[in-house]
C-alpha cells in the first residue's frame, strides 16, 4: 500500500502580498498535486497566525507586494515568525519566493524613498532601488536554471515569465543564483544572474504566476517536499502539459530563444 502524501503550504500574507496574479502559483501547485492524489492544505501566514504553526509547514510560498504593504508585512513578520521561517529553511523545507518577496528574505532592501528595510537574512543578497527616476526592469523574461536539473532535456530547464521590479539585487559571496538570464534583466540587469537559492528555497524576480508556465519547477518542488518530509523519492505521474508546452514553444519562438 502506497503512502498517502499530504503537504501543508504556508502562504505569506495572501492579502498583502498578492500584487499581480501571485495566487496562480498556489492554484497550479495544488491542482497538480491533487491530480496525482497528493493532498494539500493551505495556511495563510498572516497577522492572525500563531508562529508555532509555521513548524508544521512543508512548503512556504511568498508573492509580491506594493511598497506600503511591504512595510506592513515586515512589521508583523519580525520576531517569532521570522525566526520560525528561518529555522524551517535551515532544515531544508522547500520554499518559493517570487517577485518582491526575495528582497525581504535577503539582508536588506533600500527603497527609492524612505528607510532601509531589514530582511530576514535567509538569502545572502542585498537589494537596492537605484532611484525613483531610474527605469524599472520590466518585460518578458527567459532563463535557464543552473541550480539543479529540473527536467530531462534542455527546454525543460528553461523558465519563462514576466519581471517588473524597481530594485536591483546583488548576490553575496555565498549566494548561488537560481538561473542564468537569456532574455530580460534578472537580478540587476548586469551580471546575467536570475534569483537565488539557499538549501531548498528558491527566490526569483519572475512575478505573479511563475509556476503555471513552468510546470517542471512546480513538479520539482513537489518531489523535493516529499523527499524532505517522507524521506523517500517519488515518481510523479505524468500530466498532459500540452497547453503548457505550446505556450512555452510559442514564447520561445517569439523571443528568439
Amino acid at each position, binding site marked *: 500500500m502506497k503512502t498517502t502524501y499530504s503537504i501543508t503550504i504556508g502562504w505569506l500574507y495572501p492579502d498583502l502580498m*498578492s500584487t499581480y496574479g501571485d495566487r496562480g502559483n498556489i492554484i497550479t501547485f495544488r491542482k497538480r498535486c491533487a491530480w496525482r492524489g497528493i493532498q494539500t492544505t493551505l495556511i495563510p501566514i498572516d497577522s492572525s497566525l500563531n508562529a508555532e504553526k509555521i513548524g508544521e509547514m512543508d512548503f512556504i510560498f511568498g508573492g509580491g507586494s506594493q511598497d506600503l504593504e511591504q512595510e506592513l508585512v515586515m512589521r508583523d513578520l519580525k520576531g517569532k515568525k521570522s525566526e520560525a521561517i528561518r529555522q524551517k529553511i535551515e532544515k531544508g523545507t522547500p520554499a518559493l519566493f517570487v517577485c518582491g518577496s526575495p528582497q525581504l528574505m535577503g539582508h536588506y532592501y533600500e527603497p527609492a524613498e524612505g528607510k532601509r528595510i531589514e530582511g530576514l537574512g535567509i538569502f545572502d543578497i542585498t537589494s537596492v532601488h537605484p532611484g525613483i527616476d531610474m527605469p524599472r526592469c520590466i518585460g518578458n523574461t527567459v532563463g535557464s536554471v543552473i541550480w539543479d536539473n529540473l527536467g530531462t532535456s534542455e527546454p525543460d530547464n528553461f523558465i519563462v515569465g514576466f519581471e517588473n521590479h524597481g530594485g536591483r539585487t546583488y548576490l553575496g559571496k555565498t549566494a548561488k543564483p537560481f538561473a542564468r538570464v537569456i532574455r530580460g534583466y534578472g537580478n540587476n540587469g548586469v551580471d546575467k544572474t536570475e534569483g537565488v537559492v539557499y538549501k531548498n528555497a528558491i527566490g526569483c524576480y519572475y512575478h505573479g504566476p511563475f509556476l*503555471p508556465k513552468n510546470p517542471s519547477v512546480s513538479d520539482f518542488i513537489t518531489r523535493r517536499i516529499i523527499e524532505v518530509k517522507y524521506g523517500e523519492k517519488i515518481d510523479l505521474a505524468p500530466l498532459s502539459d500540452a497547453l503548457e508546452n505550446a505556450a512555452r514553444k510559442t514564447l520561445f519562438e517569439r523571443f528568439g530563444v
Partner: protein
Amino acid sequence: MRTRLAFLSGKIMDVFIRLFHLGAGSTWPGEIALRIDAFFIRRILSGSKIRTIIVVGTNGKTTTSSMITYGLVKAKKTVIHNPEGANLANGVASALIRGATLGGTLTSDFAVLEVDENAFTQVIRDIPSPSAVVFLNLFRDQLDRYGEVHAIAARWKEALSNIPSTTKLVVNGDDPQLVFLSKDKASQTTYFGAPQKDKKKIQLGHDVDSIYCPVCGKKLTYDLVSYSHLGVFHCTCGFKSPFISTNEEVSLPGFAGVYNRYNMNGALATLSVTLRKNPHAARELLDGFAPAFGRQERVNARGRDWILLLSKNPAGFNQSIQAVPELLQNKKSTVVLILNDRIPDGTDVSWIWDVEFENVSRFATDIIATGDRTYDMAIRMKYCFEKEDGERVEAIANLEEALSTAAKKQSSEVPIILLATYTGMLDARELLVGKKLL
C-alpha cells in the same frame, strides 16, 4: 500668437484627417498644437465660457462620460467629447480643436473629457478650474505601465490640492482610496455609490487593492461589499464610508452589471450637480442611452448574435463575467476569450490569475481561448476545473478560426459571449462586422 499658430496647425490637420477619413480618434491635431504651444489647452480654454467635466478612473470612463454627454445633449446643451482612447493631453487638445470655430473660439456649453489615470495630473494643470471632476474608481491596471495603485492615488491627491472650491467633485464613496482623496474637500464633494441591493455581506475577492486604511494603515472592516474593494467600510481610527446619495433604480435596457450601475450613478450625480437638477429629473435624461463600443455591445454576424464585453483588468473582467448570466437570462452559451498583450492591453498578462474565471464554467457550454496569448489563457482555464481533462477548453491561436469555430458550435438562439482585452476586441470587431470602430 503662438497659440494661434498652434490652433491653426491643429485645425488644418484635423480637417485633413476628416477629409480623408484617416481615423476618428486621431490625437495628431492636439499633438501638433501642444508641440507648438505647451500651454495650448489652458490658453484656448481661458478665452471661453465652456464648462469642463473631467472623468477619471480605472474602469468605466468611456461609458460614464458618454452617459454624461448624452444627458447634457438631451438637456439641450452643446457638448464636446473626446473619443474613447484619445484620453491623454493630446486627445483632450484634439477634441478642443475639433470643437472650436475656425477663429479658435469654443462656443459649446460643455467639454466632457475622459482622462487616463496617469495623465490626470498633467490635464488638471492645463485645466485648473474644471466645472466638475468625476472619480470613478481606482483598480490595479497594467502595472507594467502605471506602477502601483497607491502611487497613482498619491499623485491624484497632490493634484487636487490646488483645485478651486467652485469645482464640484463627484466621487465614488464606496472606494476607500477615493474617499481619502476627497476627505478635506467635503463641502464641494458629492458621493455616489452602488444601489443597496448590490451590496452584500460577502468575502473580498482576489482582485482587491485598497483594503487597508489610507489614514492609519490598518485593515479596513467591510460591512458590505459590491465588488472588488468597493463597499461599505470603516476603520478603528474613525475613517469610514461617507454619506452617499445614490439612485436605487438604475437600469437601462440591455445594460447589465453592478459596474454599470456605478457608472450610471456617477453620471447621474454629475448631471444633477452641473445642471442643478434633482436626481429623478436627471434620470430621465438617460432614457434611450445605448452602450459604447464593446461594452455589452450586441452585434449580429455570421448568422449568430454576439455580445461583446471589453475588459482590461481583473476588476473589469470579474464584472463582465458577473454580468453575463443577467445578459443571457441565465441560459448557457459558447464563450470566446481573447487575450492580447500589446501595449494598449498591457504587456503583462499575469493578472488573468486574479480573475475568477471559475465562474465562466457556470454559463459556458464551450470555452475557446484565443489571441496573442492563447495558451496563457487556455492554461488559466484548464486550472479552473476540478479534473485534469480540460476538454471544454479549446486553444485556437488564429482569431478568425476561433470566431468561426464559435459560430459553428453555437446552434441555438442564445448569443455567443465574447470577452476580450482592448486590441482583441478591435480585431474581433473588425472580423465580425468589417470595421474597427463604429
